[in-house]
């Protein structure tokens, strides 16, 4: 299938005396028209899916679903998943599956909780918690660089960290951490007396927005971000280009560790308690969001906004079904079915794209315009 736009006049032997002008081929029309649409569906399909879900729930769960207050509720409910999904997602994009994230979150919140209950400043406690995330990332990274499988390594660190968090907490928890309320249950931009006109936006929503904004800019606009993604796709190619690829592998672990620490701290702020018991379930919820976002586990592909939407889809389904009065376990069923469906859909699109590209017989630069 070729577009009418290209007139395939073949250059016989482009070798001798071909100057730049002659060999140049008009570009942009050598691809079948349908390919950009298919690519769009593949890359942006999840946004459409989210939109559809919202529309469906707006009618089906009316009148309570399609309200600003409910939107904020969904955003807040999805915030924690979104933070962990960002950690898992960036890890996967840079070529590592970091399973130690719940442990990182636990140790970060327990260290923060210990410092807070021992009368240290809030900012210091938070910085220490975040530093835990960075340290865990460094350790994971350097062990993995020795040639071990990151999945096994991070399973190991997960168990070490969970134990360490319990040691820090002395086997108990740190309750009553009200100092962190400003980043937990507090709502900003309240309008009216006690938020009667507008109840305000909860703090985690801002944190998620900031994390995804900065993360997206970093991955798509900066040199280090591009290299990080490149390492995820083909570390050897990056190394051969003269870039210290190993440094970027460690950076991937550090970022995902840092995001896990943020997630842990936000969770602590929400429940005003630092709990050393890591909840490995969060990693699977996060992975579901990442997989929904179509982030390939082979690395190098994917985008953070899609991961965010993936997390929001999970929250939307849970919320919509709950409003409708359907048992919450149906939300899990729906999410799983949606994930499997999206896999099939993606495979279909992928096949369609490569078939069209093949049949277009994209040749190098032999066609003259």
């Amino acid at each position, binding site marked *: 299938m070729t577009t009418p736009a290209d007139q395939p006049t073949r250059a016989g032997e482009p*070798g001798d005396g071909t100057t730049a002008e002659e060999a140049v081929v008009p570009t942009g029309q050598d691809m079948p028209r349908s390919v950009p649409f298919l690519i769009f569906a593949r890359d942006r399909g999840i946004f459409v899916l989210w939109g559809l879900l919202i529309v469906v729930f707006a009618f089906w769960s009316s009148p309570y679903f399609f309200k600003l207050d409910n939107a904020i509720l969904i955003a807040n409910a999805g915030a924690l998943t979104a933070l962990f999904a960002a950690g898992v997602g960036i890890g996967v994009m840079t070529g590592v599956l970091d399973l130690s994230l719940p442990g990182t979150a636990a140790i970060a919140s327990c260290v923060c909780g210990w410092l807070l209950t021992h009368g240290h400043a809030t900012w210091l406690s938070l910085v220490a918690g975040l530093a835990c995330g960075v340290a865990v990332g460094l350790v994971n990274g350097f062990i993995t660089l020795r040639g071990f499988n990151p999945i096994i390594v991070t399973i190991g660190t997960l168990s070490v960290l969970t134990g360490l968090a319990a040691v820090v907490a002395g086997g108990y928890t740190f309750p009553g951490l009200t100092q962190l309320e400003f980043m937990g249950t507090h709502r900003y931009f309240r309008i009216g007396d006690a938020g009667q006109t507008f109840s305000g936006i909860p703090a985690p929503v801002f944190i998620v927005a900031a994390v995804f904004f900065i993360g997206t800019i970093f991955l798509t606009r900066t040199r280090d971000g591009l290299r990080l993604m490149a390492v995820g796709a083909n570390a050897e190619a990056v190394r051969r280009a003269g*870039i210290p690829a190993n440094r970027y592998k460690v950076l991937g672990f550090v970022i995902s560790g840092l995001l896990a620490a943020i997630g842990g701290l936000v969770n602590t702020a929400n429940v005003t308690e630092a709990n050393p018991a890591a909840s490995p379930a969060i990693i699977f919820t996060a992975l579901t969001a990442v997989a929904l976002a179509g982030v390939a586990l082979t690395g190098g592909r994917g985008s953070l906004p899609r991961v965010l939407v993936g997390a929001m889809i999970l929250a939307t389904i849970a919320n919509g079904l709950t409003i409708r009065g359907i048992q919450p376990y149906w939300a899990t069923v729906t999410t799983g079915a949606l994930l499997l469906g999206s896999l099939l859909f993606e495979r279909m699109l992928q096949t369609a794209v490569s078939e069209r590209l093949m049949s277009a017989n994209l040749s190098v*630069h032999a066609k003259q315009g």
Partner: protein
Amino acid sequence: MTPPTTAAGAPALALNDVEMHYGFVRAIDSIDMHVMPGEVVALLGDNGAGKSTLLKVMSGAHKPSHGTIRVHGVEQSFSAPSDAAVAGIQMVYQDLALVEPQDISTNLNMGQEQLRRGPLGWLGFVDRRAMRRSSEVELDRLGVRTAPMTRPVEMLSGGQRQVVALARSAIRVNGESQGILLLDEPTAALGYEQTKNVEALIRRMADRGIAIVLVTHDLPLCYEVADRIVILNRGKKVADIPAAGADPDHVVGWITGSKASMYVEQAV
């Protein structure tokens, strides 16, 4: 062809008495060879003849056990591929080493990204537009235009990918000094038409003064683009002849070892 003379006609790359041992195995045995600027030298040989080893020595991936390497007349000692890259030697691997999900421009600029001016640049923000523009200029100068610079490599055909990989190396070596390109089986995965295009590109790069060493199994390619043919057999150089007028039967004989080395007389 007459190579343009630099540094009193010194070869771009010259190997002198280079040997490489792996334990007791002598993978390459006292090899002398050189490439002039603008010359395409095809390196032929059967499997295990030592082509890859020689290429790795030239690209700095292996340090030779014995012998010297001169680049533009200056003796060099490479302990890593990055040393060779600094000396102006770029290797195009058979697997191309492209980052598939990223676009052509990003791949061409990998490791040499242009940052934006001003504070955003200090934060490490890349100037995608400038990179795209300069990539286009570079590709135009090489006389190739593959696809829009924003297209991901995974959507390119095999020939287009090969061209992107070749162009990337050509851009790298074509800085201040006249560079040297080492190509490992550049047409192994390509169809007829794509092979023709890659041939043309290799020829154009040579015409711009780049010295090219071409390792291949593809004899027609080698007669088409090479100026000179160097043949290895079991680690020894057995022939070094101009490509024009080379007798294909002799070449095959040298490769398989059925024809005696043209250096035997001198050696005995």
